[in-house]
């Protein structure tokens, strides 16, 4: 009996190592080839001797192996489970910027230091001044932040809320601010996905309602109840593992529900997506659901490199140009945004003849004022998560 167990253990161990190797190579052969091609094109490779080149290729194999190892998601789930067993509230990685914190309300999150808002203030004030000069309504959306001192473990300090508050306090009079924190429910767990850094679709939709009401009051859009409230909500239970959830696995923070919201009324749009500046990714024509949503991402077994959040917007794009073929006014809107707006701009676009959406992170050094002069929008909204205040990518635009 003892001998059988021993033999089985040896077979299982060596078999498992070999199986992992074989499956990784077979299932990710294309990734290995593609990464090797990238290395071959690198300057480091070109300037190396033969032996060093082989070494570089071997290192590329290791890098691909770590990304694509067979059962990777299961290992991360097990890792998260072990952290849960250890009662850990702070889960570290080799890269400290990827640390995940579990709040008392079950939200997974991150903490941020005191942010420097000097450049943000300067750029947004300048943009607001320019808008005022050109008779364009400029609206800054103050998005709520997921952390509170009460919900974080007592030994974790977070300054993101403070940074966001200081920014708004530093604006000049030309910046109109819509403070969603005042308008949305106070319970953070109702506003955000548990496992993702984004707000949930219900919150994004509620935010849309507040924003469009504000724009209607300033631009006389002729907004009706249909465009405000006539929508279909379909909730997919336990389908979404967000950014934090992917880092800690499904057992650590659980799954999120995802609510798919579409208009009940008839819509007809043309959407041109630009993956990068000037590069058209696709042109879509048809209803709201056909042009602005991607229901194929509503899949629990989605590859973890992808996200259910892509159901709206299919990931970050440099620019989206939406023409409403059934407009109820002739107004034009420009949205400067990060991914928080991905579930907001589709709904806003139903209320304008034309909507342009620019993600400055992908549209680096855009001559924004020139762009605005050419487009002549009636309103500009700036919508971003407070966590993006820690990079200046969203204000990386030229003022002339």
């Amino acid at each position, binding site marked *: 009996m003892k001998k059988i167990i021993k033999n089985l253990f040896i077979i299982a161990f*060596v078999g498992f190592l070999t199986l992992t190797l074989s499956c990784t190579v077979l299932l990710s052969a294309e990734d290995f080839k593609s990464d090797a091609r990238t290395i071959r094109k690198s300057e480091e490779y070109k300037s190396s001797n033969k032996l060093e080149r082989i070494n570089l290729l071997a290192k590329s194999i290791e890098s691909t192996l770590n990304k694509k190892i067979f059962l990777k998601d299961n290992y991360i789930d097990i890792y998260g489970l*072990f952290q849960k067993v250890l009662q850990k509230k702070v889960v570290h990685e080799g890269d400290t910027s990827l640390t995940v914190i579990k709040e008392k309300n079950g939200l997974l999150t991150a903490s941020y230091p005191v942010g420097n808002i000097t450049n943000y203030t300067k750029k947004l004030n300048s943009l607001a001044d320019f808008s005022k000069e050109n008779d364009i309504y400029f609206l800054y959306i103050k998005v709520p932040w997921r952390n509170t001192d009460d919900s974080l473990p007592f030994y974790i300090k977070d300054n993101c809320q403070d940074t966001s508050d200081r920014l708004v306090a530093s604006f000049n009079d030309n910046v109109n601010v819509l403070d969603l924190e005042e308008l949305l429910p106070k319970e953070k767990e109702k506003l955000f996905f548990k496992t993702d850094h984004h707000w949930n679709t219900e919150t994004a939709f509620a935010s849309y309602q507040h924003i469009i009401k504000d724009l209607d009051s300033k631009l006389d859009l002729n907004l009706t109840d249909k465009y405000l409230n006539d929508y279909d909500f379909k909730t997919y239970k336990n389908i979404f593992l967000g950014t934090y959830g992917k880092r800690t696995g499904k057992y650590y923070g659980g799954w999120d529900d995802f609510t798919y919201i579409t208009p009940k009324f008839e819509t007809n749009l043309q959407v041109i997506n630009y993956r990068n500046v000037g590069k058209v990714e696709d042109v879509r024509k048809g209803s709201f659901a056909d042009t602005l949503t991607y229901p194929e991402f509503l899949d629990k077994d989605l590859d973890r490199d992808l996200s259910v959040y892509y159901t709206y917007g299919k990931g970050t794009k440099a620019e989206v140009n939406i023409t409403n073929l059934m407009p109820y006014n002739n107004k034009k809107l420009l949205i400067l945004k990060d991914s928080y707006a991905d579930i907001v701009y589709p709904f806003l676009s139903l209320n304008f003849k034309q909507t342009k959406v620019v993600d400055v992170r992908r549209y680096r050094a855009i001559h924004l004022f020139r762009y605005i002069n050419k487009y002549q929008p009636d309103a500009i909204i700036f919508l971003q998560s407070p966590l993006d205040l820690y990079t200046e990518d969203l204000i990386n635009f030229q003022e002339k």
Partner: protein
Amino acid sequence: MIFASNLFIFVFLPIVLILYYSIPNIKYRNTILLLSSLGFYWYGEPRFVFIMLLSIVINYFIGLLIDKNRTKKKLSKFLLSLSVIYNLGLLFIYKYLIFTLSIINSIFPSHIKLPNIVLPIGISFFTFQILSYVIDVYTKKAHVQKNILNLALYISFFPQLIAGPIVRYNVIEEQIVKRKGSLDLFLEGIKRFIIGLGKKVIIANTMGYTADYIFKSNISTDGVSFALVWLGAICYTFQIYYDFSGYSDMAIGLGKMFAFNFEENFNYPYISKSITEFWRRWHISLGTWFRDYVYIPLGGNRKSKIRTIINLGVVWLLTGLWHGANWTFIAWGIMYYILLCIEKIFDLKNKKIPNVIRYIYTMLFVIIGWVIFRSDSLLTAFNYIKRMFTFNNFVDLKFYELLIENLGIILMALLFSFPIIKTKIFNNKYLNYLKWPILIIVFIISVSYITKGTYNPFIYFNF
């Protein structure tokens, strides 16, 4: 390449195992092990593999010449000296030249430009193994190795190449040409490898994250609390033990998978009740190397008491320096030298001192020693130790975070420092069966840490 990586566990190891066991002939098996060992070293250090190969070739011929000229005592002594000078010279250039020049620059008004020298990983380990071979051949403790491939395998065998244990030639001489594997030995190898992997990945890396955070703080200016510096020192104490002994376990385990038996390198050092006992349990292969190749040839304790004290001084100065070219390592070695002398002179072993006091005394100095060892400079070490004994700003939020978040692993580290699991579970007739599921769980959790890309430092760059 490091053991605690997907590349090693899921690519290198299964390929080498399959190749090795698909060939029955030991000569070809050794060739496979040699080639894979060179590949293993080349992966991390493509340039330095040639330095190691040159050393092997030179010492191979010196070994042959010593054996051939045994009757000519002066010549064989000269050849031995040549080998020692070459090997230590190489070690000096790569490891100690910059340190020596910086000392010269600081003492004299010279401005010698410091060369940019990268330390080949594992040079201290393989240099000591080469010396062990040549000295064993000279002293007739081992036969000369006529097959250069066998000698190359002894020097470069991947399990012990980068982090030990230092395998002495006379221990392994026979095993290279005549060894018999068995299922039991292979299974024991898997067990040791998994235990080592778990020690390194789950315990040492977690402790390392905490220790590194605290040691990288500026103790003088960052307002680091009393409790936090102690936590840092204790976590580093656990990190270095679980990292180093974990590597040794993996090396011993891998050796067994290929039918080699290496000697043990650690024996629960943190249960020691004296510094003397600690050094009998810590890095045993280094201690015995210095005993056999330095202390005893210098006369050991067979001469006068003063001579014994001097001999010990030489050994501990070298022990400190072996760990790295920095004053901190020298100070660390000197601290142990002084403590060992005190224990010897006052015969503390036979004094009536309660075990608790003995234990506290030993661990206190071991922990202080690790603070010196871990610090970047003597000044940093001094400031750190000073903070450990300054009773203000008792506790801060970071302490709570690092303690509460790592409590589970700290308790594991504490528990496994004692031989309780070994005696109560692995040696128990019934509980023994639990070891298989436990090992499977440890392996899977370890791989999950590696795959996740958690903090995984390599702490042997100085060695």
